[in-house]
């Protein structure tokens, strides 16, 4: 994003002078917006303070000044001017900032993001990477877009990476998303920014940005645990919990919709409306199936309480059945 030619741009970025490194693709855009608001604010504040000081000095009460001079007690033209100029400025701020915000909350067009499932708990983070590797730190590859799907097993937490200029709450009972593309290799801190109790300030993790895929693969291969991958756990649960009795895995008709190729589809609902089959819809359909039923089916399924970890596994399994484009 470019707002202004070279020198002015440098000034915009230099404004606050206190920013962490810019390690994500949106960080520079955020800092431009920050710089713009900063300089508009700085000039406004300087004007307010300067006018205050000048008036106090010139018009302070003293022996030679006992009676105010005549001056108007209102002026509609002046009032409209000093309403209009700030209005214009804040609208520019709104437009610039919203443009950057939309980039901050989506994957760059035409690129596929690697998904990592994040589980927050008091007081640690857990990252299930797309290739099945689970870890206490987040590992990503330089220049490759990432989509985080965040959940929490207990209270609200928030994942914050100052160098990415990004933050997203992890809310129990639903999934939230966060998008970024790292543009600087290295290790950056992940902080919790939603108050969560005793060790809130020590709920720390790292995000490691690998130089290239090879470096990431080397990390992913080391010490891989022999336990089942999340998808395999999900496949097992799908059978054990009896899901497969009504939901076929091969596309054949059943009492409920088949899960083959279900992920990402837009389904018509009983009573009108549609739902996209994503993490939140699947979650809701498991814990409260009656809320949004796919058209053509009956309200027969009982709610099935699942542990957070199991929920994530079933979701990962359904995701793995997505039809390849």
């Amino acid at each position: 994003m470019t707002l202004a030619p070279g020198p002015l741009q440098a000034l915009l970025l230099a404004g606050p002078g206190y920013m962490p490194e810019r390690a994500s693709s949106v960080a520079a855009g955020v800092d431009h917006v920050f710089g713009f608001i900063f300089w508009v604010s700085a000039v406004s504040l300087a004007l307010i303070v300067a006018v205050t000081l000048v008036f106090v000095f010139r018009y302070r009460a003293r022996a030679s000044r006992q009676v105010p001079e005549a001056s108007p007690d209102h002026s509609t033209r002046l009032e409209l001017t000093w309403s209009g100029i700030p209005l214009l400025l804040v609208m520019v701020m709104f437009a610039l900032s919203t443009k950057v915000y939309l980039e901050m909350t989506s994957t760059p067009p035409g690129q596929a993001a690697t998904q990592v499932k994040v589980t927050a708990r008091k007081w640690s983070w857990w990252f299930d990477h797309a290739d099945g590797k689970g870890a206490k730190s987040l590992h990503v590859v330089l220049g490759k877009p990432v989509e985080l799907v965040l959940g929490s097993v207990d209270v609200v937490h928030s994942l914050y990476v100052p160098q990415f200029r990004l933050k997203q709450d992890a809310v129990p009972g639903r999934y939230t998303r966060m998008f970024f593309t790292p543009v600087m290799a290295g290790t950056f801190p992940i902080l919790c920014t939603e108050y969560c109790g005793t060790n809130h300030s020590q709920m720390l993790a790292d995000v490691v940005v690998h130089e290239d895929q090879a470096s990431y693969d080397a990390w992913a291969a080391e010490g891989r645990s022999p336990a089942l991958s999340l998808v395999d756990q999900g496949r097992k649960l799908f059978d054990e919990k009896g899901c497969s009795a009504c939901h076929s895995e091969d596309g054949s008709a059943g009492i409920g919709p088949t899960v083959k190729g279900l992920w990402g589809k837009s389904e018509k609902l009983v009573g009108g409306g549609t739902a996209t089959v994503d993490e939140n819809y699947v979650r809701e359909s498991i814990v409260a199936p009656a809320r949004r039923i796919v058209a053509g089916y009956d309200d027969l399924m009982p709610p099935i309480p699942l542990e957070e970890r199991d929920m994530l596994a079933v979701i990962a399994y359904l995701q793995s059945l997505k039809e390849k484009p």
Partner: protein
Amino acid sequence: MSAVEHGAGAGGGSYLTSERGLRSWLLTVDHKRIGVMYLGVIVGTLILGGVFALALRLHLWNPAGGLVSNDTYNKLFTLHGAVMVFLFVIPGIPSALGNFVLPLQVGAKDVAFPRVNLLSFYLYLAGAVLFLVTLVVGGLDTGWTLYPPYSLEGSRGLGILIALVGVFLAGFSSILTGVNFIATIHKLRPPDMGWFDLPLFLWALYATAIIQILATPVLGITAALGFMERIFHLGIFMPEYGGDPVLFQHFFWFYSHPAVYIMILPAMGIVSEVVSVFSRKPIFGYRFIAMSSLAIAVIGFLVWGHHMFVSGQSRWANVIFSFLTMLVAIPSAIKVFNWLATMYKGVIILKTPMLYVLSFFAIFGVGGLTGLFLGALATDIPLHDTYFVVAHFHFVMVGAVMIAFLAGVHYWWPKMTGRMYDERLGTISAVLVFLGFNLTFIPQFLSGIGGMPRRYATYAAEFTTQNRVSTVGAFVLTAGLVIALYGLLASLGRSGRRAPANPWGAASLEWSAAASPPSHHNFDTPPRGVRPYDFSVLRKVSEEAGWVNAGGEAP
């Protein structure tokens, strides 16, 4: 207050001496006595919240903390926030100063419902006592925002339930005060006092009262739902019972954002009064200031979602809330420009209330402008829940509101007590409060930009310098506040100078038509409406005797 007894105005005794004994205070329905009682309790809560704040700042001297455990730190910031917000900043100006001043400015004997007014005081007191009880039963560590699931977890003790009842009661106190103010302004004005003859403090209280009546019930409902969720597991806020924690955030901010305007609007009202009186000029753009109060009250209801930009709320909801938030900046800007224009070509008298108001301009300027960073989505995402937010809302809620409160207390002190505070001490306090405040909170902006989250009992070593400067600032600020309190209280002693009816040369009715302190019934004869910013009808007799109406005698 024994020395005040002799300072009675005309009519055989002031409201302070018309009745005697503790009972005559505790059961009074006189708005002035209720206002004074509020002032006493509210200053007590400010001291309590301030002690918590100093403990927090001392703990943060080192990155690893060390003064107290993490759990104790969490309880301290929770009670600091809850006491300051619910017991000091929200009721501070309307309940203490508003109660005392509003009927006087409107030319009435009392508020419309005096008994309801006393009920409101005791509800507030009960709420305050319950907050203290939570301390006794082990404290509360939920943050003042009380977000579930954390706040309603099954393992929690009684503290949260008591706090929710406390919030509920304090909320009702606020609602009843709002009802009283609206009824009084509508019905008890002199027949010849039109809406645009109201002092701007009344417009501000009127806009505040509208918010109190419309928003506070939502807080009460939320507290009641939280209470029931904790006991009966209804499934409203807690995911484990099928509820939604984000719903609580919506409810909470639907009240708590307008509550910011419950705090700041009366503060702006005080600034409008003081800047005009101490510039000896009519307020510039009366109608724009009055209408901007109403605009803030209305738009203020539509911006709560900006507290939830990273909560998982939809992107387009975020964009709409961001847009509305940017709009609410405009009426505040209008007010600032009008205040500055009021000083133009005036005669600026640098007494304590005016010094506080001048520092309000700079501090409210910073508070308002830094709000733009948080209303704009791109910059809010990184800054949300960091020290930038802490600094921003302290500039608005502590800086602007508390400084306006101090301006108001000094301004109306002669009317309330019949005594003049010491001008030299007042000046020193105003300067120290300004310096201490900036020293405390400007470094917190830097910590926030650098990425230090709020509510952290321990922090990264790179933020040590900012935290230490902030701690030093907190003590300078405290010194300023202690001097202000001493200066005010000392005036009640034998050496305190008697206040004339109108020491500042103000034209509104509490100064131009009532004694200092006023009699029990406020006015000996029902006053006629006046133009509240027309100072040409006043004449200064002397510093000691104050100002009189040019046409006639002092009241």
